[in-house]
């Protein structure tokens, strides 16, 4: 019954989407001919709105099936089991391929519907095109769900005894009702599963909104920065979710993958990272268009690339083209994704070429050291990292096509190629905020930067005196110190200036400073978050150490100033069908007892798979990461441990948090500033002419 409601809602939503596309297209065509078309366009808008309740009904049906354990449905059978807690049964909605495609469509329809509810008075002409682009994207995903990856297909036994999987009951067949499901892959049974995939997906789908507006601007020839101003908040929200998704995924990997890793340059990680890179370049570059009327074509290219990388990212995670720990889902929908990406890319670029001459810059770059030039360098660096990632992902495919020989490039390729680019970006983060718009010289820049520069030199001298000699690490620490001092200096400068002018206390001045120019000061907080994350990355990449050993009860292992002593081990069954082996180890630091850790290994009966869960002691200085590798089954007299010492890695998570806070600050409404901004460009233009 519920399956049929879900299937029906899914089919209807596809029909409504297709109708909406038709209505929007016909409406704009009528409009073009000068006939009244408001009714058609309004109808397409309502079709867009209607997809949300319909897809909600489909998604909620699937959730109901997952929660009630209807193992007759193949998807439910494959992703849940009786032993799983309720929250994991619900998250199984995005635990497999067909469910995650439905989830994608659900989020997409929610966002697109929200957009159609905004006030459109000033931007009437955009509406049909925004609806059209959103609905085409949505219809593509719904079509995949309906025809290729239907989450509601069920098991049947036909009269002649064969077992089949089908949506509708084959004639005379009886349903097969398995007693229990196979359960979610244990690696996915983690609280990270609740937040990481939805955040990534939210980031993915919300980037479609700025793209839809960009296309609308191109088609309607309204090529000023209006589309950028409308979608500024959307872009920031998309970026916020995508960043959050990446950080959470990284933390999840650190917690469950068992080697203290946080990022493995896995093709699927890269697939999520690429739209983030293009989106980050876009976020920076639109500021130049708003301020100086430059880079209009470039911004169009960036948002088009971001959109197609979002689709490409979904394709990579969902098609199994590339061997990867993440690619647990394989199916034949790959060619369709390729077709859709190719089609939208070609159509968007053709549209851009058609409007090429209308997108002329209103000014030009004057000085190599001006703020806008440095923004351009920033864009080139982000595009450089993107090119490295893209090349790493497609080079194996190209090489196989050309030479017939399969090759791969692993993490060393990415680390080597992106390392200098990341370093350059951090350096740029330190310098760019101090350069002036329009015209800037070495002299003005030097005058602005010498104080924070001296501070960074003092910090690095202290680090050298403390015994650090590794040149690469010193360079990295210096870059971090420089950017941190510049950022804090900029803040201090702004706060003091405001305090002098208004007499506010420092906290009030700080608050008002950020509130008056959220994007700028939110941006500085984001920069601060990035350098803190860089600190964590340098710590774990350059100074991680490890040891291992089999020890008897009472014996110890030492690493990085820590000593762990094996005390006890217990093996027991839990009521959610796990067999748990849990060790107790006492931890000492420099001879002083500081507590206990409980590394364990869980064996999942339903999926017949073990999972290693580390015992971690985390401080801002370093992490002690203890894994239980093996133990004597009966006596538990001795056990084998592997220990990692991960210096500074906590700064990675702290930096991630600061980063997210900064994005929130930047995305909040800029109330105080709004009215001025509307007048400012007009005033500037009259002054210039």
């Amino acid at each position, binding site marked *: 019954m519920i399956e049929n409601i879900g299937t029906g809602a899914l089919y209807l939503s596809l029909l409504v989407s297709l109708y909406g596309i038709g209505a929007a297209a016909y409406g704009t065509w009528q409009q073009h001919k000068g006939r009244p078309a408001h009714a058609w366009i309004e109808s397409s808008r309502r079709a867009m709105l209607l997809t949300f309740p319909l897809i909600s009904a489909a998604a909620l049906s699937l959730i109901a099936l997952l929660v009630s354990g209807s193992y007759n449905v193949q998807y439910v059978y494959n992703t849940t089991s009786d032993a799983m807690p309720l929250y994991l049964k619900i998250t199984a909605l995005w635990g497999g391929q067909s469910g995650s495609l439905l989830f994608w469509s659900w989020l997409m329809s929610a966002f697109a519907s929200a957009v159609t509810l905004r006030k459109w008075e000033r931007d009437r002409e955009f509406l049909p095109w925004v609806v059209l682009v959103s609905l085409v994207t949505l219809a593509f995903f719904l079509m995949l769900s309906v025809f290729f990856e239907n989450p509601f297909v069920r*098991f049947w036994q036909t009269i002649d005894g064969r077992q089949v999987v089908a949506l509708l009951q084959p004639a005379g067949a009886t349903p*097969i009702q398995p007693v229990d499901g196979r359960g979610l892959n244990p690696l996915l049974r983690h609280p990270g599963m609740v937040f990481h995939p939805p955040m990534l997906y939210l980031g993915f789908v919300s980037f479609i909104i700025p793209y839809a507006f960009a296309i609308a601007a191109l088609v309607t020839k309204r090529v000023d920065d209006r589309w950028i101003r409308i979608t500024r908040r959307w872009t920031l929200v998309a970026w916020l979710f995508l960043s959050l998704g990446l950080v959470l995924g990284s933390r999840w990997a650190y917690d469950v993958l068992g080697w203290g890793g946080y990022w493995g340059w896995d093709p699927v990680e890269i697939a999520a990272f690429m739209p983030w890179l293009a989106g980050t370049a876009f976020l920076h570059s639109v500021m130049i268009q708003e301020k100086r009327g430059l880079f209009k074509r470039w911004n169009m290219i960036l948002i088009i690339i971001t959109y197609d990388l979002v689709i490409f990212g979904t394709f990579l995670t969902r098609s199994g083209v590339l061997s990867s720990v993440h690619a647990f*889902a*394989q199916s034949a929908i790959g060619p369709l994704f390729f077709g859709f990406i190719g089609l939208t890319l070609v159509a968007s670029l053709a549209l851009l070429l058609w409007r090429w001459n209308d997108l002329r810059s209103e000014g030009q770059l004057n000085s190599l050291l001006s703020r806008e030039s440095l923004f351009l360098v920033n864009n080139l660096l982000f595009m450089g990292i993107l*090119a490295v990632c893209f090349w790493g992902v497609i080079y194996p495919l190209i090489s196989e096509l050309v030479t017939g020989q399969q090759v*791969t490039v692993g993490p060393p390729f*990415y680390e080597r190629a992106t390392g200098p680019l990341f370093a350059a970006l951090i350096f740029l983060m330190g310098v760019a905020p101090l350069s002036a718009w329009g015209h800037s010289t070495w002299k003005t820049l030097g005058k602005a930067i010498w104080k924070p520069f001296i501070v960074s030199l003092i910090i690095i001298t202290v680090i050298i005196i403390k015994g650090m000699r590794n040149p690469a690490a010193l360079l990295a620490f210096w870059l971090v110190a420089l950017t941190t001092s510049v950022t804090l200096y900029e803040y201090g400068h702004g706060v003091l200036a405001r305090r002098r002018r208004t007499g506010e206390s420092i906290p009030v001045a700080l608050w008002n400073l950020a509130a008056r120019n959220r994007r700028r000061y939110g941006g500085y907080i984001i920069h601060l978050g990035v350098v803190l994350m860089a600190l964590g990355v340098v710590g774990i990449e350059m100074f991680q150490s490890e040891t291992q050993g089999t020890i008897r009860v009472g014996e110890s292992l030492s690493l990085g100033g820590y000593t762990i002593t094996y005390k006890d081990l217990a093996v027991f069954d839990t009521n959610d069908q796990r067999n748990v082996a849990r060790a107790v180890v006492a931890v000492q630091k420099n001879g002083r007892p500081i507590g206990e850790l409980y590394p364990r290994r869980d064996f999942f009966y339903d999926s017949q798979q*073990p999972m290693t869960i580390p015992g971690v002691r985390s401080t801002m200085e370093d992490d002690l990461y203890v894994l239980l*590798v093996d133990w004597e089954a009966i006596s538990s007299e001795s056990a084998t441990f592997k220990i990692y010492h991960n210096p500074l890695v906590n700064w990675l998570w702290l930096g991630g948090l600061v980063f997210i806070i900064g994005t929130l600050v930047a995305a909040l409404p800029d109330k105080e500033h709004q009215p001025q901004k509307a007048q400012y460009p007009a005033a500037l233009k009259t002054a210039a002419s």
Partner: protein
Amino acid sequence: MQQNTVSPATQGRTKFIIGGLLIIAAIVYLIVSSTQASTQYFLTVEELVNRPEMANRDVRVSGVVLGDTIQYDADTLDLRFTVASIPADQKDIDAQGGLALVLHNAALDSSLPRIPVIYNGVMPDLLKNEAQAIMTGQMDDNGVFHAEELLLKCPTRYEEAVPEQANTSN
């Protein structure tokens, strides 16, 4: 506007083009040199056995794990097992009924080329019979593969057409 009248504008533009080209050249250099430095051949067990020139160099190999051969010494963390050859081409795999079936059949087929593997480290949770092992490392002159990196996939777990219990429950 004044592009063709005043030379400073052109001069200014040249400056930017040179700067931009330098950055792009640096990026291209990084990509090309890193590709050359870290490309690894991705071979099947069969290819590795039949191409002696691939011995003693970093390669990536994919094969199916034979469960009976897994030996783990917890004291030294030395892990030994044998892998059998499976096709690398997705088309061949699809033609033979999908990865799960290919792995299952390859593990039973003793005529396929096999190589012993040594790996030092924590025993991976997914290592078991009929798992696909994707390994990076070198084969020594005795034909033993020394894996530095070990990645495992068990495709059967995630998507399977018809449940096994279904036979018993109906």
